[in-house]
């Protein structure tokens, strides 16, 4: 039943052209374009409330833009094509705080469930290796609701490391982490970036400095500053 959801890493391609989005009268994204053709660690930085999360939601195919085109894995996204969207969403690791975790289950059980969703077997060796690296090896069988904020953040991060996703979208992954853990996370991300696109939305200077390429969100958003 399990199959590798990553068909071909060479297909990794992110192209966003002139997307616009607004909540009512409030413009959030204005003619935003972004092109990523190579694997690597990319950062989008900007102050909170500028619309970065909306952009990540759109890129993760959760939210539909009002206009503009998105190409992922060399496929133009038609948001009305539910089957295509559902299929591609399985190739995207979307990290949003700790919302990826089911609170009443342990970290291991959560990963088991993700394994069922993305049809990738849970590799215990990988799990042990990464959980050791992020100092969570003793917490794997503890229910998520018994973990601290930082531990939850790291537990959620395990998904990105244990399973193989060609596109990883991380929304403020270092929010609840101390400097030591941020360093660990960035080291791990650097170690896995060679065959995937990792796009981190952040306001951490450290993350920006450690990325291969960074984008100023206001510039991407054609100078739209009103929200920031």
């Amino acid at each position: 039943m399990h199959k590798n959801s990553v068909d071909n890493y060479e297909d990794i391609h992110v192209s966003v052209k002139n997307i616009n989005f607004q909540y009512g009268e409030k413009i959030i994204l204005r003619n935003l374009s972004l092109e990523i053709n190579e694997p690597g660690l990319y950062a989008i930085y900007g102050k909170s409330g500028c619309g970065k999360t909306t952009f990540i939601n759109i890129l993760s195919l959760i939210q539909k833009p009002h206009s503009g085109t998105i190409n992922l894995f060399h496929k133009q996204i038609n948001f009305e094509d539910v089957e295509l969207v559902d299929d591609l969403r399985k190739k995207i690791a979307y990290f949003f705080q700790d919302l990826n975790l089911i609170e009443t289950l342990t970290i291991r059980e959560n990963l088991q469930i993700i394994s069922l969703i993305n049809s990738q077997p849970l590799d215990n060796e990988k799990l042990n290796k990464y959980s050791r690296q992020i100092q969570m090896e003793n917490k794997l069988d503890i229910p998520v609701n018994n973990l601290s904020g930082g531990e939850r953040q790291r537990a959620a991060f395990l998904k990105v490391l244990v399973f193989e996703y060609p596109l990883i979208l991380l929304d403020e992954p270092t929010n609840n982490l101390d400097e030591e853990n941020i360093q660990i996370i960035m080291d791990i991300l650097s170690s896995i970036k060679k065959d995937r696109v990792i796009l981190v939305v952040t306001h951490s200077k450290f993350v920006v400095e450690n990325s291969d390429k960074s984008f100023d969100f206001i510039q991407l958003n054609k100078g739209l500053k009103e929200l920031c």
Partner: protein
Amino acid sequence: MLKHDSVFYYIKQKYLKSLRKLAILNFLLLILIIFSIFTVFISAENIHNNILNNDKLSMVLINGYTETGEFEYDTNLILKLPHVKNLTYDYEIPLIYTTEKEEVDSIYCLPLNETTREAISFDVQVDDNALVLPEHFKNQKLIFSDMNHKPVKTTNYYYEGSGTYFLKDQCYLAQPLYNKMLATINSSNYSDVKSLIVNLEKTEYIYDFVKSFHEMFNEDEVYVYYQSEGLENLVQNSKVSFHLLLFFQLSLLIVIVIVYKNSLNSLIKLINRDLLSLYLNGMSSKEITSQFYKTIESGNKKVYIFSYGTVILFAILLSKALNNEILMIITVGLLILLSLFILLNKLFVKYVISSILAKELSNENIVSQLRN
């Protein structure tokens, strides 16, 4: 460690109480539907067969008096009343008979016509001297005579039973013989009143008929009474009680459906954050709905088995009161009905889950949760 194909397997461990509540409600829903239909069916059968469609009750014997004596009805007017099929308006003629033991007694006779034939379910062709008697007169050698003790030559026929309650043990004379005897009676100053027997299309119209009939007379001038007095209330009450039964059963069903839907809604609210996690982890709304339905359905399997068990238990309890053939029909009928409702129940559960989850997993709702 989870070792299952369904992502919702954990619900069975973490939310057992809610699942049990849902299963119990679903069981109640199924059993209530089955037994509601059974009760309504039995009541309807009972009311229709024993009251509304009971031909024996569709006849009304009416007598009327004024202060000065017999009240003469206008039969043409009565025939025009709603739901009147036919009527007979004649004197009951006494007929004297002597048994082999020299015992003398009398019986009353009405003419054998369309109305009276229907009253005794008698459709045999008869000759002009026919006398139709209740079947208990069979095998008796009787000698008949009129009020003047003159022998009456008859050809005897017999009808089944002994007649409806106000025509009990009545006998019937072929019209020529009846006319002949009536002439004898008139000459001897017979003082009884004519009996008006009105045959209605159906018993259920008795209320309408009685109402219209009463409106024809001024109660201060004419005293009218009829043998089936009270029956119209019984018929009307039976109809009302049947509709009430239907109404209450339906109301109860609607209440349980609402409670079931709300309980399912509560469970989904409890796992609302989990649903968001599954969605963010790449699971589609369709997959979430399908797997959640399968999880609830797996709990419902026990409900379905218990429902079959309850029906069989009910059949065993009925076995003391019913004969095998009827019991078999009821049991098989209930089992077929139950299977049909299990199928409908599956569709209902699927529909409720789909509609609730479609709302919970709508794009707007997910984005709104992410924004909050």
